[in-house]
């Protein structure tokens, strides 16, 4: 990277810290620190909601996925608008009127402390692990593309984020998220402008779209009903609906965003902002990936985008084989470019298939030479484009945007972890009569603790590809059951505390069993299964044991 790009990155990180310090005004009480005195406008909360959901992996992983498979990933979000309407009608007025700090506090009022503590514990375990992993992914990426060590990359992301979250609380998180969302959208729009400029040197818009469409990359909707397929219209509309209901309705990292809104109306508007904007925003990111594919039809792409193992392969017994594959790849790329330029669809498709085969062969050789069975270059497609094809200044801006996404997603989670641990455990079970100052200090210390914990997990997880998968799967085990327990709390009157507790445990067991015994079922369906089992078992237990519960109470 050029010095100017480094200056852009450094200026951005410095600005984030200074702005976080400036936002610490009014956070000298717990209500201000954890809920911004319920004073934020809907548009700031709405942008913070979206920023918390958008991690660095969303930017680089989604563009890489679109480069390889096209727009179909957008189907994951098809259930989101309906989920936002349902949440606006149900949990938003409940949580806002209940004047709670955490979603789980409400469960104690409706059921008992056991249900609240278990739900909050599940959130803490899932979110703490995923926070570490969410930081590990961009750290690995940054260490590879910038040549840093993993701990250095983790620290560059974590130190500013922990600083502004600890000092400024939820207010600093929200206002930093607002700026970071603008930076991300501006960065992606700049990348699209550069891509279009490059593509239009070779072909017109119509031919570019026909080339992308010929490979199936513009087929965003798949109506087949197959539970083995992760992204279809149905898995997005049904499984995605339950995932979004769980995430935005039961996950403290999101609930805390809209608890900071001025009123029920403003909290609703903040969620409905995502309902309007999220799918178009996701299409913007995915379109960038598709445009990178079209761009590389006319400019020579690297055979593999993650070049970290190049030296290892070059000095391995497979070096000769790898060099031969590279020559084949160069020939296939030249043939594909010629076919694309003259608009020969059949020749283009056959040469594109050949490019794909050669890439698969090269990946196999890298895996064999390095022993890294999880080798994958999806996340390196977009960063490679940024570093090699974007003009000076914009490179720094895009790297800053990736940092921004990593920090904004993690800042909200860190803030939520501190809130749940202090409000649901420390204040509820350990120090029940502390002063305002005491709980404020505890919240700040909890933020620092979870921040350091996330750094350690991120540094460890960065070298454990399989661990990342396990943690991601764990999230899908928990969400459906948490949603089920909130459905029992808000939508039924007969559900009892024991029923909810048994339902929650039954939902968890059922999802783990399905994931273990029927691994071909795509993870989006786990949320539906967990919620349905939790509600079903919870209602049955509530109806069978009403008197016993009363006695226990």
């Amino acid at each position, binding site marked *: 990277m050029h010095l100017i790009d480094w200056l852009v990155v450094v200026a951005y990180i410095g600005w984030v810290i200074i702005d976080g310090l400036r936002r610490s005004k009014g956070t000298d009480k717990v209500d201000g620190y954890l809920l911004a005195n319920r004073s934020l406008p809907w548009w700031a909360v709405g942008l913070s909601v979206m920023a918390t959901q958008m991690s660095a992996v969303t930017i680089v992983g989604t563009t890489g996925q679109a480069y390889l498979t096209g727009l179909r990933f957008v189907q994951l979000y*098809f259930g989101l608008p309906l989920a936002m309407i349902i949440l606006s009608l149900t949990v938003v007025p409940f949580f806002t009127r209940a004047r709670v700090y955490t979603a789980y506090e409400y469960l104690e009022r409706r059921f008992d402390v056991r249900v609240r503590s278990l739900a909050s514990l599940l959130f803490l375990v899932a979110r703490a692990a995923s926070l570490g992993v969410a930081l590990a992914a961009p750290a690995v990426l940054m260490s590879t593309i910038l040549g840093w060590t993993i701990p250095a990359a983790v620290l560059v992301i974590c130190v500013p984020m922990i600083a502004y979250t600890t000092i400024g609380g939820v207010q600093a998180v929200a206002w930093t998220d607002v700026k970071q969302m603008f930076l991300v959208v501006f960065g992606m729009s700049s990348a699209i402008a550069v891509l279009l400029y490059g593509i239009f040197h070779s072909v017109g818009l119509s031919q570019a779209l026909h080339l992308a469409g010929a490979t199936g990359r513009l087929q965003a909707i798949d109506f087949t009903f197959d539970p083995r397929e992760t992204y279809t219209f149905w898995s997005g509309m049904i499984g995605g609906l339950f995932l979004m209901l769980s995430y935005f309705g039961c996950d403290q990292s999101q609930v805390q965003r809209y608890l900071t809104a001025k009123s029920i109306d403003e909290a609703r508007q903040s969620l409905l902002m995502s309902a309007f904007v999220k799918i178009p925003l996701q299409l913007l990111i995915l379109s960038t990936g598709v445009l990178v594919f079209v761009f590389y039809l006319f400019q020579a792409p690297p055979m593999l985008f993650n070049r970290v193992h190049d030296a290892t392969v070059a000095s391995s017994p497979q070096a000769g084989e790898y060099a031969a594959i590279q020559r084949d790849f160069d020939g296939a790329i030249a043939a594909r470019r010629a076919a694309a330029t003259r608009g020969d669809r059949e020749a283009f498709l056959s040469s594109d298939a050949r490019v794909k085969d050669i890439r698969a062969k090269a990946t196999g050789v890298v895996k064999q030479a390095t022993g890294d069975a999880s080798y994958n270059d999806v996340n390196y497609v977009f960063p490679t484009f940024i570093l090699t094809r974007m003009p000076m200044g914009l490179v720094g801006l895009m790297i800053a945007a990736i940092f921004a996404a990593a920090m904004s997603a993690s800042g909200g989670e860190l803030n939520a972890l501190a809130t749940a641990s202090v409000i649901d455990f420390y204040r509820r079970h350990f120090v029940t009569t502390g002063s305002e100052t005491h709980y404020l200090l505890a919240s700040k210390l909890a933020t620092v603790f979870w921040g350091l914990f996330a750094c350690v997990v991120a540094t460890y997880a960065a070298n454990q590809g399989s661990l990342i998968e396990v943690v991601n799967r764990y999230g899908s085990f928990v969400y459906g059951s948490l949603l089920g327990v909130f459905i029992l709390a808000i939508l039924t009157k007969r559900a009892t505390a024991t029923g909810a507790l048994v339902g929650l445990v039954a939902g968890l067991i059922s999802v783990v069993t399905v994931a273990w015994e029927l691994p071909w079922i795509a993870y989006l369906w786990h949320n539906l299964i967990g919620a349905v089992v939790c509600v079903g078992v919870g209602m049955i237990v509530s109806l069978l044991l009403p008197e016993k519960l009363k006695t226990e109470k």
Partner: protein
Amino acid sequence: MLEPRTMNPEPDHDTPMTGTYVKVIVLQVVILALLWIFGRMFS
């Protein structure tokens, strides 16, 4: 103990937003239709 919460003048203001919900659904239907047509046009 925690001090009483800072109250917003109208924190419980709860206006029906049926019109907004309808707009969300209409927008989603339009997006889905456009994506489907777009995919068919350039397949």
